């Protein structure tokens, strides 16, 4: 293995890593916000809206991210969505993630004991207050493990954005690999980078769970 090549590539890899983070972190934040919105709409919006959103989520979760991002980037211009690659990537990742987060959050809301909501009603809290001060915080605690998991999935899905020419980690490193015919080195560097990010996220998640343990009953 050509360690000299790996060393020489570090500045480029850092640039790629930066782009990966730029796609992943804002993309995840948007996905969470959008997923939350969809879950709340499903929770309060009545059966018709619920079914409509459920069908939409079914399509998003039933097709590969690769296909979605292809459609958005190469198909988008036909209906006037002429995004540059990073914008399309960020948008695509947000919508894809939102479909999963919506489901995770819906499950979390459903898992908050009904009695906690009844207790809020009995002390005179409005529906909006109950949502903000009881349902959402309790839901957030419940979904923490699956949220961390989903963040890791989204992080790895950013690799797909290389095919629409977003200069993120995978694009940069496979580029280096092709240029120097060093495919093994490239694959190795990629694995190390993604694994490092995954470990860091998992560590953060476990730390957070430990800190929040006392907020949990049983």
């Amino acid at each position, binding site marked *: 293995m050509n360690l000299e090549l790996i060393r020489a590539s570090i500045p480029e890899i850092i640039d790629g890593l930066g782009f990966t983070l730029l796609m992943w972190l804002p993309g995840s934040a948007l996905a969470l916000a959008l997923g939350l919105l969809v879950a709340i709409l499903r929770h309060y919006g009545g059966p018709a809206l619920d079914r409509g959103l459920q069908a939409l989520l079914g399509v998003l979760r039933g097709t590969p991210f690769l296909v979605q991002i292809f459609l958005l980037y190469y198909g988008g211009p036909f209906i006037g969505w002429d995004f540059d690659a990073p914008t399309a990537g960020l948008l695509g990742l947000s919508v894809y993630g939102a479909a999963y987060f919506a489901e995770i959050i819906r499950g979390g809301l459903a898992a908050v004991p009904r009695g906690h909501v*009844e207790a809020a009603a009995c002390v005179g809290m409005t529906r909006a207050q109950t949502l903000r001060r009881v349902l959402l915080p*309790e839901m957030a605690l419940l979904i923490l493990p699956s949220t961390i998991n989903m963040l890791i999935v989204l992080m790895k899905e950013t690799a797909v954005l290389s095919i629409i020419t977003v200069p993120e980690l995978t694009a940069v490193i496979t580029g280096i690999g092709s240029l120097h015919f060093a495919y093994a080195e490239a694959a190795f560097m990629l694995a190390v980078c993604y694994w490092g990010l995954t470990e860091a996220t998992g560590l953060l998640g476990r730390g957070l769970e430990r800190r929040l343990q006392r907020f949990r009953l049983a």
Partner: protein
Amino acid sequence: MTAPAIRLSGVCKNYGTHRAIDGVDLVVQPGEVACLIGPSGSGKSTLLRCMAFLEEHDDGLIEIAGDPLGFAPGENGRIRLPDREIARVRRSIGMVFQQFNLWPHRTALGNVSEALRFVLRLLRPAAERRAMAYLDRVGLADRAGHYPSQLSGGQQQRVAIARALALEPRIMLFDEPTSSLDPELTGEVLGVMRGLAADGMTMVIVTHEIGFAAHVAQHVVFLEQGRIALEGSASAVFRRPWNPRLARFLETYLDRGASMLIAPEQSDGA
């Protein structure tokens, strides 16, 4: 004459085709402690939950201190009152649940002060001062900073009582408040409730603690199949269980030391 604390007239509640509450008329006077007893499925919890408007009654009228709760009689049947009015009437009621239902992400103090801050709109220092006073009243001032997960079941239930009391309701409703507690922890919760009764709080209690009911309640209501099978003063109901169904129900408590309650030769000394 002042209005009764609670008046139910012809209250019905259905679940699908099952009639859980079947035309209940009940009056609870201010300062009175009323206990609802009866076998499982007799509708006692459902009836209490109707009084808190956690279940919406399908027929009949519920009045809290003279104000209709949830529905008022209209020209063509009843009309549903606006949410704001429901919330206003509900403010007279404090509710305590079998499962405590404390919010796990808030401390004991947070649980008690929450509604003071966000419903009564007190500033945080004032809300916390008042919350502390009520935690002190249930003997838990030293646990104010603890989260529910760090409290015993009995302590959690006492925090839940403080949370309801802090809003200064006229009526406290208790839904099997000791049924999820060890016998050892039951005593501390019943002690707090006994103190409330002594202070003249109007209380409606669904309970299996027949001994407690016999000693604290002025008014005992025996429900069966969604109807009031028998009601009266504690001594009338327990000392002279002439109703065979009540006698059978009370017999199940015999081996728990309640035999003295239903022995007919027992004198009526308090």
